[in-house]
């Protein structure tokens, strides 16, 4: 077990943290949905038609390019609707629950890889390069499991895992059969999980220390031609549970956080549940417009109250869209309450950079060319020249992207840099587009 100290990054201390440890009971949602955009790299082809019955774990759709990759229903019920957008792109696959709790029984003796694919848990993992659902043809060099989420207001995965921690050993055993390398487990300082059979590393340092990509970069970076899988400890526990019990369990605990939530709390829920069931009666009622984020403030997806809990997240954040409208000459402010991590504002003079702060969704400036140097590097604990990589992506210089380490990164690794960026560039979008174009070019 190694202790790895990371210096770069920043822990944003946002208002709206959960104060009590108790977990509220599950309120049954009217609807559940699977959002295909959550499974990067998978183009959905429907297996079920609206009106058909599905059990939890039944296949809803498969990947157009690789039909072995399947996405399954989180609950039992009836496939109600396939919501389509422009050019018939599938936006959501909606299931009306029957609340019978019917769950598909899998044969635990079957081939582990096929079982993972069939149960839909395969699609919950990610691979580097490209930050997509793992392709079925490549054998990963190593598998990295992260045991913590270091994003602002993120819940403790220890808390979410609870008793399911006992399944981790089984998960590591199964995953070990799929790689010639090792299964690594990245833990925070206050929560080390031993005896799983995985190689455990402890990470000390600010966000993004919990990102699998950052952990890989500091343990054994991804090289050209290599494939590495990443997943979080919750998905790992689900895998373990599947191989122990033969059933796939998409239930979870969800953290409701942020200044827009009346009393931030934990709630039992199931993946894909409608936000209405989670947030009704829990939102702060004032005249300010609220931004509901499925996930954390850095990488989460903007949703409205009619939206759903996106698959990779066990976290909802609600913040104000705008705290103060038409702020007069905000750029000239000397008020230490005007939050900035930089010293050209006065927050740092009163030690306010690490104090609790209520941030809204305002851009606080216009998009500009990159002027200041080193801003991205300060937020990215990897041996990568982030700014040069971003420029290579913008100019779509494939050779340079490759040389500068595009295979090692995912959009989420740049999220904190995007928050801190004085030039207000959409770094995650740029990286995502770069990865997609790169993949189209290489495959």
């Amino acid at each position, binding site marked *: 077990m190694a202790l790895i100290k990371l210096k770069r990054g920043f822990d944003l201390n946002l208002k709206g943290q959960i104060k009590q440890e108790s977990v509220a009971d599950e309120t049954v949602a009217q609807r559940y949905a699977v959002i295909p955009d959550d499974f990067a790299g998978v183009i959905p082809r429907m297996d079920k038609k609206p009106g058909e019955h599905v059990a939890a774990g039944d296949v809803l759709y498969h990947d157009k390019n690789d039909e072995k990759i399947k996405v399954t229903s989180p609950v039992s019920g009836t496939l109600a609707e396939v919501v389509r957008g422009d050019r018939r792109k599938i936006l959501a696959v909606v299931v009306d629950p029957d609340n019978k709790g019917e769950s598909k029984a899998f044969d635990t003796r079957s081939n582990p890889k096929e079982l993972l694919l069939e149960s839909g848990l395969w699609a919950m993992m990610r691979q580097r390069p490209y930050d997509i659902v793992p392709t079925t043809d490549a054998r990963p060099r190593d598998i990295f499991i992260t045991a913590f989420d270091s994003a602002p207001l993120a819940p403790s995965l220890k808390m979410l895992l609870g008793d399911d921690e006992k399944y981790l050993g089984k998960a590591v055993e199964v995953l070990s059969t799929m790689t010639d390398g090792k299964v690594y487990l990245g833990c925070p300082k206050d929560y080390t999980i031993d005896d799983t059979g995985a190689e455990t590393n402890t990470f000390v340092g600010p966000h993004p220390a919990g990102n699998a990509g950052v952990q890989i970069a500091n343990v054994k*970076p991804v*090289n*050209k*031609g290599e494939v590495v899988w990443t997943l979080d400890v919750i998905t790992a526990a689900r895998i373990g549970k599947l191989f122990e019990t033969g059933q796939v369990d998409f239930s979870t605990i969800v953290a409701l956080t942020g200044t827009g939530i009346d009393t931030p709390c934990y709630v039992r829920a199931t993946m894909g549940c409608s936000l209405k069931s989670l947030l009704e009666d829990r939102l702060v009622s004032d005249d300010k417009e609220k*931004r509901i984020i499925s996930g954390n*403030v*850095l*990488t*989460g997806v903007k949703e409205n109250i009619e939206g759903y809990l996106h698959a990779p997240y066990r976290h909802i954040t609600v*913040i104000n869209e*705008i705290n103060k*409208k*038409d*702020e*007069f*000459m*905000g*750029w*000239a*402010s000397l008020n230490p309450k*005007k*939050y*900035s*991590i*930089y*010293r*050209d*504002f006065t927050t740092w003079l009163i030690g306010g950079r690490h104090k609790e702060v209520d941030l809204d*969704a*305002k*851009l*606080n*400036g*216009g*998009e*500009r*060319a*990159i*002027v*200041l*140097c*080193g801003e991205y590097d300060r937020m990215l604990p990897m*041996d*990568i*020249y982030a700014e*040069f990589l971003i420029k290579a992506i913008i100019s779509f210089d494939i050779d340079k992207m490759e*040389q*500068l*380490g595009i295979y090692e990164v995912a959009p989420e690794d740049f*999220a904190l840099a*995007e*928050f*801190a*960026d*004085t*030039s*207000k560039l*959409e770094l*995650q*979008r740029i990286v995502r587009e770069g990865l997609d174009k790169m993949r189209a070019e290489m495959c």
Partner: protein
Amino acid sequence: MKSLRKFMDKIKPHFQEGGKLAKLESVYDGMETFLFTPNTTSRSGVHIHDSNDMKRTMITVVVSLLPCLLFAMYNIGFQHFKAIGATDATHWEMFLFGLLAMLPVIVVSYAVGLGIEFIGAQIHHKEIQEGFLVTGILIPLIVPINTPLWMTAVATAFAVIFAKEIFGGTGMNIFNVALITRAFLFFAYPSEMSGDRAFVKADSAFGFGGDAVDGFTCATPLGDIATNALDKVPSTLDAFVGLIPGSPGETSMIAILIGAAILLITGIASWRVMLSVFAGGLAMGALAHGLSTPTYPASMLDPVAQLCFGGFAFAAVFMATDPVTGARTKIGQYIYGFLIGVFAILIRVYNGGYPEGAMLAVLLMNAFAPLIDYCVVQANINRRQKRAKAQ
């Protein structure tokens, strides 16, 4: 503020497409975002953003230049009244004279530069960029006070168009725009830019002050050194305080150091660049002093004096640290800064044609900054490729 907001909302339709003043859309947008932080919220990616933006960054640099600007005004008055022999002028009179002398230059610099920026922004339908806020105040500080205003206007226009706009605007330029202005003047109108008459305003400003006797001349210390008039050279302490002739902003080491402190505390300028420019200057100054010979009179100056005279310190603090035109990697910044320091003193000491080398040193290294970064980044790339092969 509400009435102002109402007023802005009221006139907005005129500036939008189809309005009478649609051609001034960028100007309106610039004014609006200047007055009110835009209410736009993030569309994709992160949902929260830091308060820091380009306006704040640029205005902080302008603030760091204020000590130099205020001192420059005082010193111009001081030198003027000294030149006309009026020993009874008060401090306020000196300052007022300097203010009146500098104001037209500041107005011309901003009017020409921002005018071109506005036109450029309108043609490209982009927001107005803030870069010229800093350039516009740097120009009056580095252009000799006796430069005719039309020359300043032509040089500013040349620099903004050919050193910045054609490259794509703020953040895209290769050379420091303010220094290109200075270099344009230096090479296009050499007689006005150097010699004995450029640096002290000997005639009145808007009728204020007096006129010196005909044929009054006063060279800068480095000019005196270059012409071997060593007896006229002020002490290093005088140069540190700054009541000596020279380009307006460059004379006072004290004012420059205050500016440096602001830039370093706010974290806007790179301490690596600043430190290594001074280190390079000291090293080259020591070397030149060690090999001093009367053939090159500037080599007689001790290394510390080299840093205090001329534009060296101003260039180190405000020009070399321009992040856009300098090296952007940490290791690159050390090399870039050190070489600026070395070249500035090298040119100053061993090139008889140029009594000051800071401007040329920064511009030269601006050209080499991408190469330095290339080498540093290449080392990272090599490391990555080696790692891949080792597998």
